[in-house]
Structure formats: structure tokens, C-alpha cells
């Protein structure tokens, strides 16, 4: 089975600040990691690959530094890695990102299964997976928490919903977006780390892809960010200490005042 996993390199949350003068993100000194949800996509891909003695290719669209994320995937067991990187791809929204990934996947050619994380922690959109499936013309199952059955023709999964889960069956090739519940990712092996250090990472620019040049990057993005600002700070709260009965009475009084109870 041929598996493609789409991963994104993201800044580790918590450290993101915005420059109050310029309203832009301060990214300096913020470490980059593989998007946490994508770690589950990698792990699931590896498990399927190992069971079906297939191959797994990891791809990312990003700046040259995203090379590190691909090497990490190789250390975990990915066979191939492709970095889709070009100034012309920068500023892409989810539409242009999915379009670029779709062009790269068309160039790869054959695949049975594409795996994405449910969402990336920087944009938090969860849109790239479904958009990519549409552009490739393949079916999708989102929020997959479990793969029940898989063979060359079809795959049966549990898709997490608000009130439980749906069991759905889809023909292959298909795209899945996965959630944390699906597995526990492995750690890289020493051998894997060695392999990653020496691995050749394929780099594709816009010239290597067959797409419409005006559909890439900022120019190809239907959405534009017109303003970035800090959220309103939460009003400072009341910290209660002391006797339990007094704290509880104070809280209940507050709840009554705000008509919550």
C-alpha cells in the first residue's frame, strides 16, 4: 500500500506573542515542531505500511527549515520525504495550500491512502484535508479515531462526532484526517535518527509542479487577512482563599447575581 502523509511544521504554542507596535507575530526564538495532530497521522501511516509492507511518503509545503520536520518523520520510519518549497508558495491560505499539495500529490502519481492531522495548531482551520480531497477528487473521512478494517479496495473507520461516532466505509484511494485517540505515536529509534541525518530530501519548487502559477501562494488565495490584533484581555477575576464554606458561599452568590443559577 502506498501512503502519503501531509505534515505541517508549526511554532510551538504558548510562546506566540504579537508585537503591539506592528501587530505582527513575533516568531523569533519560537521553536518549531511537527503539528501535534500530524504525529498521529504519521504513526497511523507507519502502522498501515508495516502491516501491508507498503511505502510511506511524507510531504510538507513550507519554508526550507521544514526540512527538519521531514527528517524527524524519516527517523520515525517514513521511506521518502518531499519538501514543497518556493517563495511563490508563501502567503497561501487553506485553498492555495491544498491546491499546492494536490499538485505535488498528482506528481507523485500513485497512492492508496492520504493521511492528514485533523487540524494544525497555528491556523486551527481543519480545512486543508477536506479541500485537498476535493481537489484530488477522492472521498474523505474526517476526525478518524479508529480504523476498523483496511484492504486495497476499501477502508472502514470510526469518525468522531459530537454525540458519539459514525462508522463509515469508503473505497480507496481515500483521504483521512485523524484525531489523537487513534494511536500512541512511537519515539524515533537510534537507527532511524542515523537514517534521517543522511537522508536525501527531495525539494520541489513551483517549476516542478504542473499547476496554474496564479493559483499558488498569496496570489492564489481567495481569503486575505486584513487585520491582526490581540484578543480583549479577560477581566481580572476574584481569587478566594480561606474557609471552604465562605468561599463556596461567595461563589454561589456570584452565580446567582449573574443569573447562572
Amino acid at each position, binding site marked *: 500500500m502506498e501512503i502519503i502523509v501531509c505534515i505541517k511544521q508549526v511554532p510551538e504554542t*504558548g510562546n506566540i506573542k504579537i508585537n503591539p507596535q506592528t501587530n505582527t*507575530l513575533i516568531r523569533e526564538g519560537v521553536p518549531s515542531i511537527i503539528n501535534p495532530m500530524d504525529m498521529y497521522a504519521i504513526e497511523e501511516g507507519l502502522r498501515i505500511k508495516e502491516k501491508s509492507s507498503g511505502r510511506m511518503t511524507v510531504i510538507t509545503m513550507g519554508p526550507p527549515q521544514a526540512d527538519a520536520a521531514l527528517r524527524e518523520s524519516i527517523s520515525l520510519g517514513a521511506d521518502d520525504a518531499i519538501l514543497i518549497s518556493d517563495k511563490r508558495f508563501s502567503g497561501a491560505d487553506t485553498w492555495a495550500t491544498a491546491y499546492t499539495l494536490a499538485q505535488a500529490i498528482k506528481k507523485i502519481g500513485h497512492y492508496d491512502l492520504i493521511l492528514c492531522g485533523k487540524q494544525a495548531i497555528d491556523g*486551527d482551520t481543519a480545512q486543508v484535508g477536506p479541500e485537498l480531497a476535493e481537489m484530488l477528487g477522492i472521498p474523505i473521512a474526517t476526525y478518524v479515531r479508529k480504523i476498523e478494517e483496511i484492504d486495497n479496495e476499501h477502508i472502514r473507520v470510526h469518525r468522531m*462526532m*459530537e*454525540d458519539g461516532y459514525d462508522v463509515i466505509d469508503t473505497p480507496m484511494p481515500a483521504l483521512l484526517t485523524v484525531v489523537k485517540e487513534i494511536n500512541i505515536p512511537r519515539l524515533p529509534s537510534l537507527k532511524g535518527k542515523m537514517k534521517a541525518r543522511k537522508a536525501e530530501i527531495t525539494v520541489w519548487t513551483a517549476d516542478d509542479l504542473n499547476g496554474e502559477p496564479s493559483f499558488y501562494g498569496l496570489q492564489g488565495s481567495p481569503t*486575505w487577512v*486584513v487585520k491582526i490584533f490581540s*484578543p480583549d484581555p479577560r477581566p481580572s*477575576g476574584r481569587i478566594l482563599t480561606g474557609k471552604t464554606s465562605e468561599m463556596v458561599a461567595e461563589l454561589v452568590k456570584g452565580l446567582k447575581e449573574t443569573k447562572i443559577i
Partner: protein
Amino acid sequence: MHIEIRKEKCTGCGACVSACPYGAIAIEGDAARIGNECTVCRACIDVCPEEAILFVRENAEEISRGEHRGVWVFVEQRHGDLAEVGYELLGAGRQLADRLNTELCAVVFGNGLEEKAKGLIPYGADKVLLVDKQELDQFHDDLYSSVLLDLIENHQPEILIGGATSIGRSFFPRVAAKLKTGLTADCTGLDIDPEKQILLQTRPAFGGNIMATIVCPKSRPQMATVRHKVMKKPMPDNARRGEFKNVKVDMGKMMCRTRFIEFVKDVSEKVNLTDADIIVSGGRGLQKPENFALLRQLADLLKGAVGASRAAVDADWIPYSHQVGQTGKTVCPKVYIACGISGAIQHLVGMQSSGMIIAINKDPEAPIFKIANYGLVGDLFEIIPALIKELKQA
């Protein structure tokens, strides 16, 4: 969008070549030629002494409002019930439609839903489009997107919003991808730019650390999914009149590759996390799985749901479907009660937009207190039983 050289005017002076930051222009023969590296940054246009460089927008990108009219709200159903967020969006949609002086249309897919769909008119819809088919009872990405695309083609709305639910966030992107239009995920604010008459979509990004306002100026419809509970559900006005249309769709032409096998209900929850007005959440401070019963008692009393930190989920004290945070769910209840949760950033990003936050923690330095409206410093095993007792009396 692209850059064009008017050959009859170009003298081949080369001013554009040095102005181009991407090295995309070359002089060939006696005229400039734009290469593939062009990003349409337009730096060349101003430097050309002959005004021989044109910025060309293809027709498809020239959106005039003329052809696209109406604000659409997709009101989803699950197991025959219309989602609450659908009603909330009718309130928001009504305001947008009024600002644009256009109609508000509710779109419903399902089976046997005529009465419920008609019931959306009192909540502000001028028109209801219902596609009533047995096949639409269960959610399929393929089917829902083909049917919605069919309606959009026939009616050309200018704005299309839906709930940022599992269903909305799954198939709206497919529709947007097909239409080459923009889609903004999980918005918390919608407005109309008074001058340009376009939709201003505001959403949190980077885990709520920043807010961004996004527009989709050149393609239609402008699409957004909107977070639960941030828009106010309007009061119904039973005197309102509107048009109801049972739309005929040829289901034979609609694509559906997936097969629905069964639904397995989460029996651990009466109210689901995203719908709950009140969430009582527990973390590692609960010490063992049995202690979640205490939270359940408090949640039941408040008609709320039970949430959890990742630490509690990873310890197998409670299923993953209860996890709040970066790798779990984003929730926005009226009240969030965090019990024995330290308030790590990955947890905060999933709940910091809640209306009121109450924290119970024995460590006065716990970061959760920084965002709490009420912080109770003490032992949760004393405080929660006392709170339950007090609430029963209240």
C-alpha cells in the same frame, strides 16, 4: 491576475528588469518578457516610463455583487434535530442581510423535516430551502457537498455560513475547494464592511493568542463556519412570514462514495460538550477515575457536561471525547469549572473563550487562576461537595 507587457509601447529600456524583486523579467529582442517567477507584486508597473506594463485581472475575478444575492445559513440536522448553532446563525445572518439589504435564507438537508424547517421562519429567515430526502438523513461529505453545490449554482448566494460543527467543518471546505472561494474557519465575529459591502470574518488563531479579521473580496460566495454559542439565538417571532420551498434535487446525479454503517452513541454523556452551557472539567488533581463521579454529580445538578484535561484522558480516567484543549475539543460554554487542572497553555486554548471561568485548585500559583473569574484556592475534595450541598439548597 497576471502582468502583461504591451509590446507596441515597450522600448526594452530595462527599468522593470532592475525593479523586479524576483528576477522574473528579461529583455528579449526589443521588449520585456515576464517569466514564471512573477508573483504579480506589481513593482514593475510604476517604474515603466512608457506605461507599457499592465496589471490584468481575469474576468472571473471581477465580482460584481449584481449576480450574487442573499445570505444563506446552513442549518444542520443530526438524528432529525436541527442544531442550536443554526438558530444562533439565523440571528447573525439576519443582521448581515439587513446591512446588505438582501434576503436571509435558511438551507436544511434531511429526511421528514418539513415542519422543523418551516419553524426557522420565526427566527429570522425570509426563505427556507429544504432538501427532504431519505439519503440526507445521515451525513456524507460527498452527498452534502454535491447537493449544496447544486443549490449554490442555481441561486448564487453572496454569503454562506454554517456552524463550526463536525459536519460543517468537514464538508464546507469541500464546497469551497470546488468553487475556488475562500472559507474562514471557526469565526467568532461577523460584520459587513460598510464601504465595500463585503463580509468581515473575525476568528481566533494561534490558539486564541491572536485574533484575525479575514475577507474574501474576489470570489463568491464568501463562506465561513461559526463557533457555537458566540452568536445569540434570536427570540422567535411567530408573526413573521416567509417563503418555504421544498427543493427538488435529482439524487441520482449526486455523488456519494461513502457508505454509512452505523452510529454509536456516546453513552457517557447526556449533554454533549459543544452544546453544553456549563462544563465541569477535571484534571490530574482528581487522582483517580472514580472521582469523576463527583464531577458528574455537580454537572448533573447544573445540567452541564463533564470535560477533562489531557492528563486525565491519558491516564484513562475518562474517554478522549471529553478532552478539552489543543489536541481535544474547543469549547465555549457560559460557565467552565476547572477542577484540579493546572491550566497549561494547551488546555487554555480549548476553553479560554468561555463566558465565565471558575477554577478550583489547591496551588495558588496555578496558571489557571490567571484567566479565572472566580478562583477558589483549596482542596477540591472539600470544595466540590460543599458546593453541591450549597447548590441543592439554593
